[in-house]
């Protein structure tokens, strides 16, 4: 037995703390140092999803239906995985259109329709009331358990007068608290930073409280999880509870519940509020998309152990929904139950605060204001009075919503357990999903389709879930559920059209969504959209389109003065000044026409306070002519997408062009190079031909003109003429060879030959001519070296290599070494000399035509014949034709240059 006053003090103390946090958050926001500018706070605020229903009801559901309670959290996990696509788009749209609630969102999507907004607000009001009732019930029951334990809690609400009922007072206290909390001032953007900070704090409190009970249960009441699970396994009843058999509706029910939780997470008004409206930075979604599911996982981790422990240890009287309280109470704990109570209170108040604020915003913006504006009953005598009107409406709405919750609780509350009530609300919220989600991706969805679909879905929901709840409370005759109304069997709420054997939620969800989606699509396909609808549809579906929202869409005429007066009247002078500050124009006075951008800003500012539908009506009242240039917006959208496509193609084309021109440039470069080489070649050839020709001519002239030359001299001159002629013809032969090589007309006659024999033969030929005392040594390793080649040409190459080596060998002691060896399946013939060698960077250039290595000491002086500079290029050409390679390297033994010829070995015969 606990002291009631202690509990009361703790509860009020906790509420006061929340209030302080919220006030602090609001003050920080006003100072521009936002408390909630962190993705973690954002993720925690989304955890308002976990209400008293999670806190007490999960254990209850686990005790009854096994693992199915997890579905309520797996659905949101799936939704958060889609956050980078889905929720990001919602946030983007909401911030561009200044959306204040889910009703506003749907109304704005379907042409700022006030009737659709009102419908959504009404459905939300009716659908969410059970959920609020659930929170009231949780607070009342948990308080009763805490104070009365171990006596069983007897809840006989209907028998007592309402003032004797604690829930009534709880509702009243909370209403006062939320009014103080959420409607202290009217924010233009409908953001409540203080509230979000407080909600994030509450999420921490309930997590800590729940984990404390869990840890206490597992480690104090039992010796750790293994002990607990051993006892569970020993009991066949509990074992059965852990399997899929315990899930209502089996596998089908499982999927139904998963879909239900997924859709409800996106469409519940409070979730929409924290996810979309209160989002301060789109990037926060990144962290929240995994942190929030993690929060869900952690808070649910110990649900099953607690439920199992409750079933193992608990007394028969206690309700599974209260296990989190009764377990520590039973163990004689004093502080822990109070912490649990505070945790449950935080879960319940968190939900009620956000939900009632979201609902009251809907009621004031979507239901009351449009009516007031239309009926002309709104007389705003002084400036800025709208804010106080709105606040008053919202305060009344908050009170009414909570009283409605109390009423439901008092009338129906006993019929269902906590989780069951929550699911009824989930199914109601799901009716927004088709209009919301299809509307975001299909431009063709229209107002009529959305309205009809949602209404039908709502009616089916009411028939299959809401009314049976009343029936079960004894409000209707018992036969209603079993035999159907007036005995019509196919109208039975839990087996509509004879569909039996499904669990009631999957059943209701299936029928209501079927009707909802079917009618939405059907009507949209066969009816027309208004022009404003088309625009809004385009803006919503193309929301992720870059630089779309900057476009000004207003075309109608109004003056700055009229606009200023309108804003002054509804928003007050400071907000008006802010709007006008975005379009400063010194020269303009109030009689000047307002620019379209300013009109659009003004509408946005009004929409932030009043909702888009009302803002629309107000702006229309001062703007003359076609307010919105629909043609232009549609063409903007179409042209932007078209332009993007065209741009993409252009870019592709220009890339191709760039590539082609690059290739062309390279080819041109190559051609120029070749041209230059050709010119050089011609110049060189002429030069090379002229030198011997000049000497031949000179000596021939001497012989012709001087008759008195001695015979010896004459012979010498004739020798020179003959030698130079030989040189000339050799040169011409080489040039012809080169020309044939380069044009590919060189005819080789490849045949199998022994390179070793050929090398020896070449050496002999060179030695015959050798008269300069070059010491030529030969090392031939393989006995025979079969290659495929043209013997004459190869001999020409080898002789050329030997000649070259002789020329460049050392002057005083010229040495040349020829080696032939096998290298893998190739043969390598290398010719090295002991000359000065060839520098690294010169090695490739010796294969260029007419390249001659400059010798400082003048090799010519020592009577060595000059080379033509064509021998090596020709040799390389021949070797390459035969499939081999020819290159220069450092001589390994003699230290000079080493020319290596490599030819592939002939295949085995």
């Amino acid at each position, binding site marked *: 037995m606990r002291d009631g006053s202690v509990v009361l003090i703790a509860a009020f103390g906790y509420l006061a703390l929340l209030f302080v946090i919220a006030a602090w958050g609001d003050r920080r926001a006003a100072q521009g140092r936002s408390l909630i500018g962190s993705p973690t706070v954002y993720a925690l605020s989304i955890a308002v999803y976990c209400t008293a229903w999670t806190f007490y009801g999960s254990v209850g559901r686990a005790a009854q239906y096994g*693992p199915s309670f997890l579905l309520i959290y797996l659905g949101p996990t799936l939704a958060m995985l889609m956050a980078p696509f889905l929720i990001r788009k919602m946030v983007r749209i909401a911030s561009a259109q200044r959306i204040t609630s889910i009703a506003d969102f749907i109304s704005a999507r379907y042409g700022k329709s006030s009737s659709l907004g009102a419908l959504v607000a009404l459905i939300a009001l009716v659908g969410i009331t059970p959920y609020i009732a659930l929170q009231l019930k949780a607070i009342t029951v948990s308080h009763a358990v805490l104070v009365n334990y171990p006596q069983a809690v007897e809840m006989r609400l209907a028998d007592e007068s309402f003032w004797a009922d604690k829930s009534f007072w709880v509702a009243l206290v909370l209403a006062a608290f939320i009014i103080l909390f959420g409607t202290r001032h009217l924010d233009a953007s409908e953001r409540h930073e203080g509230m979000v900070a407080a909600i994030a704090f509450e999420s921490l409190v309930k997590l800590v409280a729940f984990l404390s009970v869990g840890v206490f249960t597992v480690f104090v009441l039992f010796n750790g999880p293994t002990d607990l699970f051993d006892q569970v*396994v020993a009991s066949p009843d509990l074992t059965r509870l852990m399997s899929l058999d315990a899930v209502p509706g089996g*596998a089908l029910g*499982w*999927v139904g519940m*998963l879909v239900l939780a997924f859709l409800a997470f996106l469409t519940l008004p409070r979730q929409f509020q924290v996810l979309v409206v209160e989002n301060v930075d789109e990037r926060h979604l990144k962290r929240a998309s995994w942190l929030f*599911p993690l929060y869900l996982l952690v808070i649910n981790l110990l649900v*099953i152990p607690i439920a199992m422990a409750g079933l193992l240890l608990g007394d028969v009287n206690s309700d599974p929904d209260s296990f989190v309280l009764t377990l520590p109470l039973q163990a004689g704990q004093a502080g822990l139950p109070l912490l649990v109570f505070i945790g449950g209170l935080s879960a319940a108040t968190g939900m009620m605060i956000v939900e009632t604020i979201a609902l009251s915003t809907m009621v004031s913006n979507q239901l009351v204001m449009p009516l007031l504006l239309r009926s002309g009953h709104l007389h705003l005598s002084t400036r800025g009075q709208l804010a106080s009107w709105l606040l008053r409406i919202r305060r009344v709405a908050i009170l009414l919503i909570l009283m409605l919750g109390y009423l439901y609780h008092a009338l129906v509350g006993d019929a269902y357990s906590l989780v069951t009530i929550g699911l009824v609300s989930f199914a109601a919220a799901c009716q927004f999903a088709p209009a919301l989600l299809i509307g975001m991706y299909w431009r063709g969805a229209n107002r009529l389709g959305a309205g009809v679909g949602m209404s039908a879905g709502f009616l089916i929901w009411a028939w299959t879930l809401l009314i049976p709840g009343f029936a079960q409370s004894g409000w209707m005759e018992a036969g209603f559920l079993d035999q159907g109304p007036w005995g019509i069997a196919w109208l039975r709420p839990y087996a509509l059209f004879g569909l039996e054997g499904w669990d009631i939620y999957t059943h209701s969800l299936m029928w209501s969504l079927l009707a909802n989606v079917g009618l939405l699509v059907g009507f949209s396909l066969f009816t027309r959209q208004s022009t404003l609808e088309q625009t809004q549809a385009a803006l919503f579906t193309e929301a992720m389109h870059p630089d779309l929202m900057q476009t000004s869409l207003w075309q109608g005429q109004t003056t700055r003065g009229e606009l200023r007066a309108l804003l002054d009247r509804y928003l007050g002078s400071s907000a008006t000044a802010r709007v006008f500050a975005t379009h400063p124009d010194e020269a303009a006075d109030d009689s000047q026409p307002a620019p379209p951008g300013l009109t659009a800003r003004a509408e946005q500012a009004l929409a932030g306070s009043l909702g888009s539908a009302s803002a629309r009506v107000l702006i229309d009242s001062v703007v003359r002519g076609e307010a919105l240039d629909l043609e232009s917006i549609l063409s903007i959208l179409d042209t932007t997408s078209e332009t993007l496509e065209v741009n993409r193609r252009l870019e592709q084309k220009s890339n191709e062009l760039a590539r082609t021109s690059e290739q062309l440039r390279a080819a041109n470069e190559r051609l120029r190079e070749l041209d230059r080489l050709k010119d050089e070649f011609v110049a060189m050839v002429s030069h090379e031909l002229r030198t011997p020709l000049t000497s031949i001519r000179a000596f021939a002239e001497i012989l012709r003109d001087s008759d008195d030359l001695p015979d010896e001299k004459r012979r010498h001159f004739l020798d020179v003429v003959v030698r130079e002629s030989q040189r000339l013809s050799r040169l011409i032969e080489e040039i012809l060879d080169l020309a044939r090589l380069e044009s590919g007309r060189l005819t080789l006659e490849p045949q199998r030959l022994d390179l070793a024999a050929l090398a020896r033969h070449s050496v002999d030929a060179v030695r015959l001519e050798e008269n300069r005392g070059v010491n030529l040594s030969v090392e031939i390793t393989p006995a025979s070296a079969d290659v495929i080649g043209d013997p004459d040409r190869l001999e020409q190459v080898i002789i050329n290599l030997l000649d070259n080596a002789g020329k460049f060998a050392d002057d005083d002691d010229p040495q040349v070494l020829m080696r032939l060896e096998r290298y893998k399946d190739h043969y390598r013939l290398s010719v090295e000399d002991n000359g000065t060698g060839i520098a690294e960077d010169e090695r490739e250039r010796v294969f260029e035509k007419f390249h001659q290595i400059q010798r400082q000491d003048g090799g010519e002086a020592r009577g060595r014949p000059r080379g033509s500079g064509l021998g090596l290029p020709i040799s390389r050409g021949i070797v390459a034709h035969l499939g081999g390679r020819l290159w220069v390297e450092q001589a390994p033994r003699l230290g000079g240059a080493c020319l290596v010829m490599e030819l592939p070995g002939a295949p085995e015969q």
Partner: protein
Amino acid sequence: MNAPRLKERLVALIVLAALLFSPPLLLIADRSPATSVWLVVYLFLAWGVVIALMAWLMERRHEE
């Protein structure tokens, strides 16, 4: 990593999560004779893996 690849990976993760949490795989976990609490263990494990993958995908791109 470029954005298109991230999108593809996200879609793959969503499909994976949907598969892990739905009946065909679930029934296998349910029928497993290993231990009677296997279904619950499986659910929490699958859930944890999905969250870890999502965290990895989302937080890895911070340096960009």
